[in-house]
Each structure stands twice: as C-alpha cells, then as structure tokens.
C-alpha cells in the first residue's frame, strides 16, 4: 500500500475528531479503562481531594490544617516526633515543657525559676548590673530554704559586701587587704599596728615604745624616764608612793646613788621586818632599835664625831666631851665653875704642868658640885 500524503492524513484526522466530538463520553468506562498510575499530577488542578492518602501522607482531617503559600506553610496544630537538622523559629516558642538533649542557645532566656541537677560552669564573672531605677544593692547570692535566708550581697552606706553568715576560709589561707596579709589563723599581719584590745593572752614578751600605765598604780613616763609606783609624778628614777610617803631610789648630783624619802619623812633600813637604821626627817640617825634588844654596831675603821679632819692615828676622834658609864669626861684648864655635874665626872687638865694635876674629879654632885684634883704631876 502506498503511503498517504500529508493532505490525506490531515483529512482523515479531521474526520475522526468530528466523530469523537459528536459521540457521548462514558467517564466511568474511561476511568476503568485508564491504566493504573498512568495519570500525571499535571492532570489535576483545583478542587478538593478527600480521603487523600499516600505512602507518606495520611489525610484524615475534616478541616484545613495546613495552608501552603509562597511565604510559608501555615499549620494550625503541629505534632512532630522529631525535627531533623536545625530549626529556625522567627517568633515565640510556647511550650508546656521542653527538654533539650543538647545545646540550648538563646539570646534572651526569661525564667522565673531554674531547676537543675547539673553544674553551672562560668567562664566570665557573674555580673549584677544596675539598670534604670534598679540598684545593685541587695543583689548577690542568696541561699534559701534552710532557716533564714543566707546572703552574700552588696550593701550600701558604705558600699560593702555583706554576709549574713560566718566567713570561713581554708586552713593556711589568710585575709588580706591590698594583697597585704592582715589576719591568719594564728597571727595578725605586721601592718596591723593599732587596736583597742583590752585583753591579751599570756604574752611571750612585751616591747613598748612610750608611756606605760598599769592599773592607775604603775606609771612610766617616757619623757622623764621615771617609774612611779603609786604616783604619776615620781621624784627619782624609781619612786614608791604609799600612805602619802614617797620613797625614792635613784641618783643625785649626777654622781651619787641614793635611797630614802623625798619629803620630810623618816626613813628606815630594815631587816627581819624591823627598823635597824632609822633616819629621821631632821637628819637624826638611830643605829639599832630602842624597841628591840640592843644591837652591836661595829665600825671596821675609824669613827669621827663632829670632826672635819679626823686624826688618822686614832680610832675614835670626838670633837667634844665624851660620857661613859654615866660620867662625863671633858677637857678644861681648871675644874668647872658652872653646870650640873655628878660625882665621878672628870675634867682633864688641858695645861698639865709639874706641880699641877692631871685633872679634877667631881666628888659631890651639884652645880658645879665639889671637885678634887687628882694625879699630881711630878718629875720622875
């Protein structure tokens, strides 16, 4: 058979279209005869697909849940088991609870309470910032739930860090100010030099620069270098004031040591709690104690009485008369003419000569009494 021409083919096609256009289409028959999975999505436009189901989608909704536009997919209620990869939300996420297995990163996290069983690690200071009318005072760390609230916060007037609790640091650690240790477990730092301490422990030693007062009784003046016991105005290096009597011990005239009383008060040198040498305020001296048994006074040397230049050849040099055994012995060029004398008193002749006497002796007491010469002086 010969091949039809172009014109013949177009004529036959037109006749066929006319036949088809005049015929009634049986849609059911058409769909039944349409091969399965031969219809392209391009054959669908508009309308509503109900009871839609596919391998990945099961549409059981009775009303619209998802609306897709060029800008976004709008979902009325979204129930997601897993969101793979990153999720970017340009709005609020409101959740009854949220668990994040990995990193939760937020520019702003607003919470009323944080509960955590994990460590909170810090890489920078925890900063409490004053903003607007909000002050920093009272901000800091609070511990609640066990008794009163425990605080480590900033307080004002003056600005300070306030703690409601003891501060305890580890053994061998110290408190310092300006990196200078001021207090350790065992010592105050050397820079701490001033205090108002009123009780001290048992000191191992004591060094004082300056005045000293003890119990309003012992007074040491650094200016005068004098120590007073019972007086704050000592008149010697050491003064003891008791019962209004000042006993002094020190030096005199820059060359002499001395002990005694400052005012016109007698002074005793004592042994066995008994006065042994008493010096009266007027200078009279008593060796021994009249209220005690007689003592023995020994002079291991020479004794001069009212003599400015004692005779070195004698042991006892008396300027005037002497009395012993109740009798006076004195010198004169004759027997007394006045004065009370008793029998036995002797006057030694200051001008003995041959033919005169060594002296006179009182034979009858009186004024001047009766006297007799004795010791006639004769040439040998």
């Amino acid at each position, binding site marked *: 058979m010969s091949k039809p021409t172009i014109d013949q083919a177009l004529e036959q096609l037109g006749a066929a279209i006319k036949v088809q256009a005049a015929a009634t289409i049986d849609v059911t028959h058409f769909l039944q005869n349409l091969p399965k999975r031969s219809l392209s999505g391009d054959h669908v436009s508009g309308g509503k697909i109900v009871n839609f189901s596919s391998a990945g989608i099961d549409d059981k909704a009775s009303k619209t849940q998802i609306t897709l536009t060029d800008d976004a997919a709008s979902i009325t209620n979204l129930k997601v088991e897993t969101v793979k990869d990153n999720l970017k939300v340009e709005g609020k996420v409101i959740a009854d609870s949220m668990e994040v297995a990995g990193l939760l*990163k937020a*520019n*702003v996290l*607003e*919470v009323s*309470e944080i509960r955590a069983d994990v*460590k*909170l690690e810090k890489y920078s200071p925890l*900063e409490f*910032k004053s*903003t607007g009318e909000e*002050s920093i*005072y009272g901000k800091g760390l609070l511990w609640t*739930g066990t008794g009163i609230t425990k605080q480590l916060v900033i307080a004002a007037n003056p600005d300070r860090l306030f*703690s*409601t*609790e*003891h*501060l305890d640091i580890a053994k061998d650690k110290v408190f310092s100010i300006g990196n200078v240790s001021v207090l350790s*477990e*065992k010592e*105050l730092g050397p820079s*701490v*030099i001033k*205090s*108002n*301490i009123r009780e001290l422990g048992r*000191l*191992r*030693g*004591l060094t*004082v620069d300056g005045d000293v007062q003890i119990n309003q009784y012992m007074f*040491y003046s650094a200016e005068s*270098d004098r120590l007073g016991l019972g007086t704050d105005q000592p008149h010697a*290096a050491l003064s003891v004031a008791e019962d209004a009597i000042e006993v002094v*011990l020190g*030096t*005199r005239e*820059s*060359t002499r040591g*001395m*002990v*005694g*009383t400052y*005012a016109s008060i007698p002074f005793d040198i004592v042994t066995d709690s008994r006065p042994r*040498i008493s*010096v009266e305020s007027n*200078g*009279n*001296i008593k060796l*021994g104690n009249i209220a005690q*048994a007689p003592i023995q006074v020994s002079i291991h040397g*020479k004794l001069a009485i009212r003599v400015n230049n004692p005779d070195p*050849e004698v*042991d*006892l040099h008396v*300027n005037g*008369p002497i009395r*012993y055994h109740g009798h006076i012995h004195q*010198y004169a060029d004759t027997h007394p003419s006045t004065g009370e004398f008793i029998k036995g008193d002797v006057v030694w002749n200051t001008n003995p000569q041959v033919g005169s006497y060594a002296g006179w002796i009182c034979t009858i007491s009186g004024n001047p009494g009766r006297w007799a010469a004795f010791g006639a002086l004769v040439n040998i």
Partner: protein
Amino acid sequence: MSNVEQKITAVTDALKILLDEQFQEVSIANIPHIEFKVSGNGNLVGKGLIWTGAGATKQFITTTNPDRIYSSETIDLAKDKNISINNVPVISERELGPSVTKSNLKELGRLRGLIVDGDLQINQYMFYDSATDRLGLGTDTPNAMFSILENGVEVMLGTTEHSRGAVGTYASNDFDIVTDNTARISVSGGGDIELGNRNSGPSKVTVNGKLGINVSQPDTRVDLHVAGAVKFNDKLHLSGTEPPSGGSHTVGDIVWNSAPSTNSFIGWVCVQAGAPGQWLPFGQIQPR
C-alpha cells in the same frame, strides 16, 4: 568550642540577661555551686561576682600572685557572725580568736590585765630579762635583781651571797641615804661612811646597842669598844707601857699605862707639845 562549653555559655548568657534585665528575683534551685572553669590556656583571674552600674565596679573575684579571692569592697558580716579559718574563728566583732597568738600591734586599748611570760622592754628604758629574772631601769644588763642606771651611776636593790638584802651602788660611786631630800648617811665609793651631813646642822646619832670600833670581837660588857686610841676635846688618849718616844703630841694628851704595877703610875700626860713632847707621870699606884 565544645558541646559542654556551648551549653554553659548558653546558661551563663541566659543568667546574665536574667540579672541584667527585668527579672530581678531569680531562684536557682538544686545548683550545688557556681563553677568558674578554666579551659585551654585560660585562667581564673577576674572570675567571680561583679556589680556594675553604680559607681566603680564592685568585685568579688579571683586573682593571682598569690591565688586569692579579691573583694573591692569592705566585707561586712551580720551581727554575731565571725570570720574563721579552717572552721576556727579568728575574729568577731569584739574579739580576736584564741588561736591568734602573734601580732605586731603597736597600740592597745586600756588593758584589763597583763601577763607576760618572757622578756619585757619599755621604751628602751625598762628591761626585764626573763633568763636572769632581773629588772633594769636605764640598763639592759642590770647587776642586781633591780638596777637603776642614771647619769652613769648604777643603783641596785637585791640580794648578795644568797642570804643578804642589799641596796647601794654597783661601781665605785658614792651612795646616800636620804630624808627630806638631804643626804643623812653617805657611803663613799671607797667605803667611808659619813653619818649626818656637814652641810646641814649636826645630826644626833644614837646607837641603841653597843658600838665597836675596829674590833673584831667586841667586849659584850661595854657599850663602846675601841681597838685603838681615842681623841676627844682634841686630846689624845692612848695606851702604852711608857710615854711616847715619837710622834707629835699636844699638851693634855694622855698615855694610859698598859702595865701598871705598885709604885708605878697609871699614866703619863703631855705637859709640853712636841715630838714626842714632854711627859709627866700621874696617879702613882699605892700599895694596899
């Protein structure tokens, strides 16, 4: 940045915001502590708490050299609270802890008492040496239990020979016993003793007992026992077996015969001054 660090950064940032912004009241429950952690080559310097926005930044942070926590502010404890080290209280409002035993304090308050075990120094003037149990005023090397060194003179008060009390000078300085600010008994550095004061009126010296002069064994029968010669009214009385053969004598001097016998004389008297002068016997002893 590790996963953990990222977590922490997130929480830290969140906390910072919380505290910076409108959330002023925040509870942190079940957080055992806040850890400032070093990672990599980082350090802890500057980590801690800071308060900003009101004057100078207030800090309670870690620092180094040596490692320590630094506070830019005074630390104020509540009443009755204290500062302790290793749970040992070291200071409270009113007292230092008993473990604090060492200080360099130079000022104290008015002490209620003072007990010192050990040496004592006051103003480089009063020295107590606990090793010798001696107290010195003006000297740190006292030569007695108590010594005063003043004007180069050391006056001492103490004991001698373990049995005697003593007061006086240590070196060859004179020593006075004083009343009414006037020397009454003066002991020279060489040992000479002066009773009374020649610059004052004559003192009365009373011996309530017996007086021995230059006598090792005083005669208990007498009140005055003189070993050698005596002189009174400027006249010499001495003892000998004959008149002096030498020495200067004045008229009236007497030599008592130390070997008297019948028909001899009880003594001799100088009738003419000289050396030895002229002497005459007196008081011939008659046989009984």
